[in-house]
């Protein structure tokens, strides 16, 4: 699962299915597939599929009715299995959605919860009892057919989770802050690591799941670098401001002379703005996309990735012809984007020089917590030397940020980052190696 959305109406008059639809749409940057579970206070109903199908026939969610619901998006490389479960026992229904990595199975968590509920535990008590023994790096949403929802961000805090409200009528939960805004709500707070929020039409409580021992809290760097939307605020920090600052930092360490700066849309645009500002060069709108927006990095199939890249990056001749260009991207994963772009720029548009500027450190390992970073043998910087990388993508140079530079920027905002994919070690426990 890549992104979660939860909606609870305090008044049964509401049907939240349309809210859920737009909430998922606002989470589309985090995955192409979706699943939704709604409750009308009597039973649970669910539906899932490809989000592009949902886009084409936006009323399909209207088949579902309910004033309480949870939903999520997940990418193709991820699998729904193990991230979603539905259980039913004697008229009691329960469903769980997870973003991240859980040690053990979601189905098993659900079974243990049901068992305790059957023994007479209140839902919150049962939840705390079960979850305190579950290791992992994840956010979770739970719903039952009594219109109760629990949102939980696991102790390591790697996966963001936010709480918002719409007037006197709705409580909203979302991985990023954006779906809360799109639903007309107001961001109220970030759910803290280890914190759960229990929401039902007649009670909202916040509490902590106790942990054994000391755990480092750290939020995933990749959330700020690539995953989240520019207009998101994660754990109180504007994603846009981080990206622009990283671009400025790149500008300070860039050693070449160029005529123009171009950002790879859309994620790298704020980086390019900051970078161009420091260089004092024009930022040009160099690439125009065709068709539906896709996030190429989280596509599982290599051919689909290539098609996505080619369709979203048609170069503007005027910008590149005969110029020395710095191309700014947020990250270098397989190098496919940069390589295919440079080929066109050199062979068709007659660019003079192409300097590649990357707004993050070198990726050297996959993510043990289920973030969409490919296996180590597919990461360009884990396998190729700097010199070879430049030759492979046919650039004049490549500039990266160092882990220290990135960490310094965040720590000035009081943030603790997980940089495992740049360093090769797990900063937080609970992952699978």
């Amino acid at each position, binding site marked *: 699962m890549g992104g979660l959305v939860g909606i609870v109406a*305090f*008044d049964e*008059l*509401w*049907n939240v299915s*349309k*809210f859920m639809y*737009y909430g998922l749409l606002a989470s589309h940057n985090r995955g192409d597939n979706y699943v939704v579970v709604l409750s009308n206070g009597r039973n649970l109903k669910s539906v899932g599929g490809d989000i592009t199908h949902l886009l084409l026939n936006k009323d399909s969610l209207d088949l579902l009715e309910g004033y309480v619901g949870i939903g999520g998006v997940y990418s193709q490389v991820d699998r729904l299995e193990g991230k979603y479960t539905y259980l039913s026992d004697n008229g009691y229904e329960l469903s769980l959605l997870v973003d991240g990595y859980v040690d053990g199975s979601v189905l098993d968590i659900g079974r243990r919860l049901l068992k305790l509920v059957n023994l007479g535990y209140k839902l919150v008590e049962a939840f705390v009892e079960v979850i305190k023994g579950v290791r992992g790096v994840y956010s979770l949403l739970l719903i039952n057919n009594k219109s109760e929802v629990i949102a939980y961000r696991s102790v390591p805090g790697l996966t963001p989770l936010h*709480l918002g*409200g*719409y*007037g*006197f*009528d709705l*409580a909203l939960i979302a991985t990023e802050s954006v779906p809360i805004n*799109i*639903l*007309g709500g107001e961001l*109220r*707070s970030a759910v803290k690591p280890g914190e759960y929020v229990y*929401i039902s*039409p*007649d*009670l*909202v*409580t*916040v509490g902590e799941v106790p942990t054994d021992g000391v755990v480092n809290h750290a939020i995933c760097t990749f959330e700020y670098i690539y995953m989240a939307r520019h207009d998101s605020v994660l754990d109180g920090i504007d994603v846009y401001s981080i990206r622009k600052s990283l671009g400025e930092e790149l500008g300070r360490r860039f050693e070449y002379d160029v005529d123009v700066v171009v950002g790879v849309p859309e994620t790298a645009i704020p980086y390019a703005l900051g970078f161009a500002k420091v260089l004092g060069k024009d930022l040009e709108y160099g690439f125009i996309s065709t068709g539906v927006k896709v996030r190429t990095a989280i596509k599982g199939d290599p051919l689909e990735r290539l098609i996505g890249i080619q369709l979203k990056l048609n170069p503007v001749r005027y910008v590149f012809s005969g110029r020395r260009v710095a191309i700014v991207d947020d990250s270098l994963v397989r190098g496919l984007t940069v390589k295919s772009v440079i080929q066109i720029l050199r062979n068709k548009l007659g660019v003079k020089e192409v300097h590649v500027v990357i707004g993050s450190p070198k990726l050297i390992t996959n993510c043990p917590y289920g973030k969409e970073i490919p296996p180590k043998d597919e990461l360009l910087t884990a396998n190729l030397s700097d010199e070879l990388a430049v030759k492979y993508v046919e650039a004049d140079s490549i500039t990266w940020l160092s882990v220290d530079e990135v960490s310094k920027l965040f720590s000035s905002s009081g943030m603790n980052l997980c940089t495992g994919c740049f360093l090769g070690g797990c900063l937080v426990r609970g992952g699978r190696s």
Partner: protein
Amino acid sequence: MKVVVVGDGGRENAIALMLSRSSLEPKIYVISSHVNPGLKKVAERSGGKLITCDILNRKEVKVRVDEVSPDVVVIGPEEPQFHGVSDELRGCGYAVFGASSKLAEIEKSKVFMRELMWRYRIPGRLAYKAFTDVSQAIEYVGNAGDVVIKPARQAGGKGVKVIADLQAYLSDVKSRVRVDYTRKLISDVMSHYVDIDYKLLVEERVEGVEYTLMCITDGYTLLPLPLVQDHPHAFDNDLGPETGGMGSIQGPGYLLPFINEGEFRESVDIVERVLKVLQEVVGERYVGVLSGQMMLTSLLGPTVIEFYSRFGDPEVSNYIYTLDTDLLEVIDRAVSGRLASVKLRVREDLVSVVKAVCPRGYPNNRKVAKGHPVVVDEKSIRNYGCEVLYAGVELINGSMYTTGSRIVELVCAGEDFDEVSKRVNKCVEFVKCVDGWDTFYRRDIGTKDLIMRRVMTADIVRNAYTYRRGKGLSTIKVDWIPGKGVITYDYS
């Protein structure tokens, strides 16, 4: 001196407590619909007692008051005012502190209030439309857009629906909710009242920061009390349904951290002007409390949301530590028209926080919230320097039970909101339903984070209304329908 207080909630407990501290050493008699343990204690300690009767029955209340023969009667809640209790007692020659039924229309009929404000062009008024016909009302709300739906009559603070409708893609869902809600409101709430023709009020929706301005008046002088901010959302982070108020903050001094001196004065001016025209229209002198439920809005600056013909509950509870004035003396002067010479003393060095503790089920499912046995460890609460006021609690055969509303209000004062708020939070565990029924309260009221958020909202709003005033847009609203022409709405 003998004083009668009519009413049975947390507000009356706060009033009675303040009266009991008077240097006039009054005997306090409370006339209540049930036995509120807090009121009982204050009354008995003062040498008075608590008497139960139907407080909405003017004749019955009169008989009880006759038995006491008090020097002053204070009417706490609005419903006895609406039902003519003040009229009855005044008619019998009692000195009554509390609006007459005609003057209390300012609270009872939201349509009367808006009409009055528009007729006399009083600032801070919102555009509205009122309905007597149910089907017309339903047709209108279906297409009304970004509005607030209110029952036309004050209904114990219940029934207001605020539906922000700014996302066109969610508009059809909201239109449906408005229509369904209106139907329900008219059948479930308004059908109980036969004392009003209007059924529904639809107002333009505004956003901003709310605050309450409570004023004492003898009909000649208006004596503003320090501003208080209530927290209507049931749960932390301003989540959840609208309640009668989950708690309130006050201070330092007359202002709040997010309302400036100019905005305070403008608000007082609005209440003053309303008082003047209200007395003219009704032809009676207003003796009692007139409160403006205000909001600082980007549209107008200080804006009237509602008027109360009484103290706000829980807002008045904030004053038990910070109002350094003999309240009974003030009330005594008000009933005899001698308020002009009164100067209030307010503790400028203190801020106060009130938090209500509620049974699960409040406010929308009071049936399940009612009848749970309650214990309160008053001694431990006082050890933290806090006071407990009883609200929706009933004493039956020596045990306390919930009535379905807020159980108690915890009150505390100190130098710093955040510290005071945390101190109150520590006292919450001393209020329990012994049958294990869930209770809840707002941990965040008075915290630094929440006050900072209010300050930020107020700054945004202040920027916007200052801009509008600069462009002359505080008195007109300009609309343009392409192809049809310009429409100017006159708010002057």
